[in-house]
């Protein structure tokens, strides 16, 4: 095992919350509003379902192969060659995801706040920061999440200030186009929720593994609640216009004007979301480094942290000429990519394990 640090299951929950929602808050409301129109507040509820499955999968696989992470047990389940191919596939997936997340964060910052800063500066500064966190290992990420996640959650509380401006009429008519647009719109939130499966990389370093499942569900509950709450506020504030906004939550924040004192809160929002995105990037960076390390059978993953960071910077630029391409990718390709890797492949792994154990029992 490459990782020697120990984290508690509460810390796991605190790490997973921004891991799902950091880019979730940026892109999900507008993705789901484009499909589901005025019913998009329901899409978060569907995320509960797929998030539940992926947490169960991660915990079940960890029970069957204790003290091992995804990259280690996939070799045991599928055999040496196929397992290795799968680990390489996962490494590429995580590397690419880390690049895309970094790019999403950088586009958000440069498109709304730091207009004249070159995007490479924003990307490399956050990747450098994340590299130091990853160098410290799982423990370092968990501890920084303990400090930064409360800061990340805080903006949600500020949205309550919008209550006087909300218009309840916007949610009617409910389900006027049937349930299918809502299901199509929920593919984004569902995919983001299945990213909870990444906890399979943290389960082996838990101090109290028996509580891991409980805290993962707490995290899932908090994630779904935040998704539904944010979607509700945006729908009631912006109405049918929500799908046209690039960052609806940012628009909602610009709208806040309370007691002539709470105004221009978007700067505050940026400061807080940098914290959340830092955790998300660090987690994906860590997972990438760990799976590459396991793939190449290294004795320690720390030396390759900085080279992998360089690759993440390259991948955040590679094949993405502009924001439009990135937006299209996040809207259509990314949900399918994530669902395949974080839901379908783990299900296949579990089925193969079950099949193997069953045939073993049949043999005398």
């Amino acid at each position, binding site marked *: 095992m490459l990782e020697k640090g120990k984290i508690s299951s509460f810390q796991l929950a605190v790490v997973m919350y921004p891991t799902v929602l950091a880019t979730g808050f940026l892109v999900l409301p507008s993705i789901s509003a484009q499909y589901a129109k005025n019913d998009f507040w329901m899409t978060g509820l569907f995320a509960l379902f797929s998030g539940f499955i992926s947490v169960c999968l991660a915990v079940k696989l960890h029970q069957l192969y204790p003290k091992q992470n995804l990259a280690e047990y996939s070799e045991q389940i599928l055999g040496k060659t196929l397992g290795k191919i799968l680990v390489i596939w996962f490494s590429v997936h995580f590397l690419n995801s880390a690049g895309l997340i970094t790019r999403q964060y950088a586009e958000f910052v440069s498109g709304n706040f730091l207009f004249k800063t070159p995007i490479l500066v924003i990307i490399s500064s956050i990747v450098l920061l994340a590299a130091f966190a990853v160098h410290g290992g799982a423990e370092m990420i968990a501890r920084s999440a303990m400090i930064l996640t409360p800061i990340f959650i805080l903006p949600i509380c500020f949205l309550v200030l919008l209550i006087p401006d909300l218009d309840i009429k916007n949610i009617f008519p409910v389900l006027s186009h049937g349930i299918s647009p809502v299901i199509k719109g929920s593919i984004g939130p569902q995919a983001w929720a299945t990213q909870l499966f990444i906890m399979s990389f943290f389960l082996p370093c838990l101090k109290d593994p028996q509580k891991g499942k409980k805290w993962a569900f707490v995290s899932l509950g908090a994630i779904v609640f935040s998704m539904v709450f944010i979607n509700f506020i945006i729908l009631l504030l912006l109405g049918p216009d929500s799908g046209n906004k690039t960052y609806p939550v940012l628009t909602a924040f610009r709208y806040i004007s309370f007691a002539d004192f709470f105004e221009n809160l978007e700067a505050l929002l940026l400061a807080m979301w940098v914290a959340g995105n830092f955790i998300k990037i660090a987690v994906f960076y860590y997972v990438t480094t760990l799976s590459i390390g396991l793939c*190449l059978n290294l004795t320690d993953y720390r030396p390759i942290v900085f080279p992998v960071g*360089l690759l993440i910077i390259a991948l955040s630029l590679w094949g993405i000429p502009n924001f439009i391409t990135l937006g299209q990718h996040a809207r259509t*390709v990314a949900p399918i990519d994530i669902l395949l890797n974080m839901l379908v492949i783990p299900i296949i792994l579990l089925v193969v394990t079950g099949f193997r154990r069953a045939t073993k029992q049949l043999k005398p």
Partner: protein
Amino acid sequence: MKWLFIGITLVVILISRLEWPKLKQKPKKDKAAFVFLLMLGWLLFLFDLPHIAGPSTFFRTIYKPFVALLK
């Protein structure tokens, strides 16, 4: 582009300077992996990255049939 590549070259030199002393007592495999990943990252920046096809273009192509289902 030229300046970007020079900058990345400096970063690569810095990374290898910082990490090499720690890598010295590690097995050969670790050193090879470190050099391979670092060189890969360095060489990638030779290209005009945003405008050539990359992994995300690849994923866009292979998931096309699924994307069509969503519409």
